[in-house]
């Protein structure tokens, strides 16, 4: 490099003389630049010869100049937007009315609020461990409405934080039932008898009334159950005023037309009498609840027509036996809930799918694993000689008479014979002899001796009266159609409280629904009802929530008689019936068809005789 520098300096000196040239070497611009100098400039002695070439030597070389730009290029910039674009938001608002209204005790509640605060939090957190969420029904399509239900607090905390207290803590499955009803405009609560459909319905009504979502409720039930519903409302919703529609026609009209209470209770029979009032579109209800809704299973019945004509927004049906005889029963109930939704031609599987979101059915086996068992005992007896004699005569003559009727034979004729034979199985009409009575007396001796109480069911009042005569030593009470309604509650109270009364005699009609007799541990079915569902209802008067121990059910059955044949048919059907509710529960057994009733006597059904059977 030093040498190079020296050459450069020399070149600078020579530049003025114009006798140098810089030759560009493209490949090695600085390292080896060839420099051409004259000999004189270097101090050498040079001899010039006249060759003609010297002139060329004196010519200046060609010079090439190249410029280099040292400035940097301007950078190219790219902008990245890191702020996000506007977010798409869906907004939903819910009604302000969803606030719980004041109840009679709320003033004192507010006074005590501070002291109760901690307790409520504790209660709420305890309940939160078991939270029951309200789900929207499938028929609610609008997202806003679905979210309204989904965003409600868990039922337990809703109740705990709104001072809706209970005398007894409901079972978890009962909370589920309340949540089910709460969000539904059409619903069937079809829990097995004894699981507390009443408390679930009352609690759902209570919440809807207290939250301002309903103001007018009509409860329709069988006449004997009116007082029962009154009592249950007092227990489970004490702050909700309840009015029973009763009295003379003008009073009832006034009751129908005026807002006398948020909840009105009426019985089916009365509804029929007041049909002019209730079908008036001016009388409108937010909710109509049918207790024992199987009463409207026949779509063509007047009861069904009147009930369906009541103007309403919500329709709930309560029944432990949504299907008594055939799936058509369910179609009948759905005509009240959602007319046309089901039809008789639907296949059971399709029907089961269609009703899934509308029907809630639980059995004791499913939800009450710790409930004492129900022990069945078929008390088979043999007729006394006197009874046999009467029975054989009646049967032989009866069958001959039926055969003689030929084309005129109807289901009613067969029924009459069946009833006649069943009555003889109970008591011999001539002598009063009764094999069943003897067995019942023997069993009751044991029951009463152990300090327990028993219920005896029969389908006939006359039979109950005969039993009453024979059981005087046990202080029997009677509860059936001949006992005036106003006295019936008193009968139940006496039976419950007075140890002198160890037995109560009930008809299936009066005593099979709505009563709470869980202090009884023994049930005797003196004769058999046509339909096991009704028998089950009767049995479940005793085997229900609160029962202390196992309930023993004695089904009295006379060997080699019509009773045995009926029982056989019904048992077969019990096992065969596996369709509508098979997913959720054991199937309900149905009553007997006409063919089956005719078949009891090897008779053939006539086309003209076809009507609904048991």
């Amino acid at each position: 490099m030093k040498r190079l520098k020296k050459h450069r300096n020399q070149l600078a000196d020579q530049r003025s003389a114009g006798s140098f040239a810089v030759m560009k070497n493209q490949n090695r611009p600085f390292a080896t630049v060839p420099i051409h100098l004259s000999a004189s400039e270097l101090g050498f002695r040079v001899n010039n010869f006249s060759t003609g070439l010297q002139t060329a030597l004196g010519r200046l070389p060609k010079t090439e100049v190249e410029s280099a730009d040292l400035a940097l290029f301007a950078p190219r910039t790219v902008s990245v937007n890191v702020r996000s674009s506007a977010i798409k938001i869906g907004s939903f608002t819910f009604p302000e009315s969803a606030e719980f209204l004041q109840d009679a005790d709320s003033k004192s509640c507010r006074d005590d609020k501070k002291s109760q605060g901690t307790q409520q939090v504790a209660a709420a957190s305890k309940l939160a461990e078991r939270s029951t969420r309200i789900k929207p029904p499938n028929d609610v399509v609008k997202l806003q409405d679905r979210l309204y239900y989904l965003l409600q607090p868990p039922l337990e905390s809703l109740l705990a934080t709104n001072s809706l207290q209970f005398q007894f803590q409901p079972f978890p499955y009962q909370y589920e039932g309340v949540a089910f009803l709460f969000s539904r405009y059409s619903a069937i609560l079809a829990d097995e008898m004894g699981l507390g459909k009443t408390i679930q319905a009352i609690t759902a009504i209570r919440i809807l009334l207290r939250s301002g979502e309903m103001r007018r409720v009509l409860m329709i039930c069988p006449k004997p159950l009116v007082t029962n519903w009154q009592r249950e409302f007092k227990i489970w919703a004490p702050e909700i005023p309840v009015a029973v529609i009763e009295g003379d026609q003008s009073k009832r009209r006034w009751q129908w037309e005026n807002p006398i209470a948020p909840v009105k209770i009426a019985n089916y029979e009365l509804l029929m009498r007041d049909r002019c009032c209730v079908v008036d579109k001016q009388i409108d209800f937010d909710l109509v609840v049918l207790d024992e809704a199987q009463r409207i299973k026949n779509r063509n019945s007047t009861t069904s027509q009147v009930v369906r004509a009541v103007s309403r927004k919500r329709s709930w049906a309560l029944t432990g036996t949504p299907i008594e005889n055939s799936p058509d029963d369910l179609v009948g109930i759905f005509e009240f809930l959602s007319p046309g939704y089901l039809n008789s031609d639907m296949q059971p599987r399709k029907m089961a799918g269609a009703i899934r979101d509308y029907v809630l059915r639980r059995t004791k086996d499913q939800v009450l694993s710790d409930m004492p068992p129900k022990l069945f005992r078929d008390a088979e007896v043999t007729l006394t000689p006197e009874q046999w004699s009467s029975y054989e005569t009646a049967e032989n003559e009866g069958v001959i008479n039926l055969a003689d009727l030929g084309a005129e034979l109807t289901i009613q004729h067969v029924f009459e014979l069946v009833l006649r034979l069943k009555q003889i199985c109970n008591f011999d009409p001539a002598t009063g002899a009764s094999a069943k009575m003897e067995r019942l007396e023997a069993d009751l001796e044991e029951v009463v001796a152990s300090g327990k109480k028993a219920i005896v069911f029969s389908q006939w009042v006359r039979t109950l009266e005969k039993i009453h005569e024979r059981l005087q030593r046990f202080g029997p009470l009677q509860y059936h159609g001949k006992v005036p309604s106003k006295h019936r509650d008193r009968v139940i109270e006496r039976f419950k409280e007075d140890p002198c009364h160890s037995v109560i005699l009930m008809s299936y009609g009066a005593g099979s629904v709505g009563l709470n007799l869980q202090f009884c541990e023994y049930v005797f079915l003196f004769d058999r009802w046509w339909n096991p569902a009704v028998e089950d209802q009767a049995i479940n008067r005793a085997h229900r929530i609160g029962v202390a121990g196992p309930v023993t059910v004695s089904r009295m059955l006379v060997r080699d008689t019509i009773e045995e044949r009926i029982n056989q048919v019904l048992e077969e059907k019990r096992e065969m019936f596996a369709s509508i509710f098979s997913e959720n529960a054991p199937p309900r057994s149905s009553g007997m068809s006409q063919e089956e009733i005719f078949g009891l006597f090897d008779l053939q059904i006539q086309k003209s005789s076809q009507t609904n059977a048991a």
Partner: protein
Amino acid sequence: MLASDTKLLPAVGFLTVVEHPEHGFFGGFLVLNAMARPLEFHCTAPVRPNRAQEILYGTTLRPFLIGEHIGNALVQKAKTKIQLICTDLEPAIAVRNVNSTPVILLCSNSEEGESSTPVPRALRVDERHPEVPATSRPLVRFQLGTHEVAIPDAYEADRTAVEKCFKVCDGTLDLTEPFERIREAIEEAQKSAR
């Protein structure tokens, strides 16, 4: 309780975000009255950070996205005057940076509330980021009834307002339960959008 009483009680907002592995973040904001009943619900369409945001926000991406972006957009939609916002996600308390309503984090649920799906954290391919908390500022923890809650220390002054609000609601409002409702509602809204 009187209906008129409940109108005087404060409304409380509950803010959470559900992360979906494919669609991104779904925000939900539920406004309850003091009796725990719903007054308003707002939810977002899915939000996904773009690649630039992932790189440039670095570890502050989640607080930005969940708190300032989604959270604030939701809170702004509320019509009811809200006196307190509760969240079960730590990044969501960044909503307080852009909103004047006090925000508390439910500590007991914050860990559970965090999505198990990892959010992209390798924000630059050539450099490993140190693990840092989602919030840049420390939290002040304190007890609110039975709940352990936290607020950003920059807003420690909110504590008085928070305690006052909670005192009025005490006994009626469970602060942890509503988040489950929001998640269900978001799922329902997603279903209806499909």
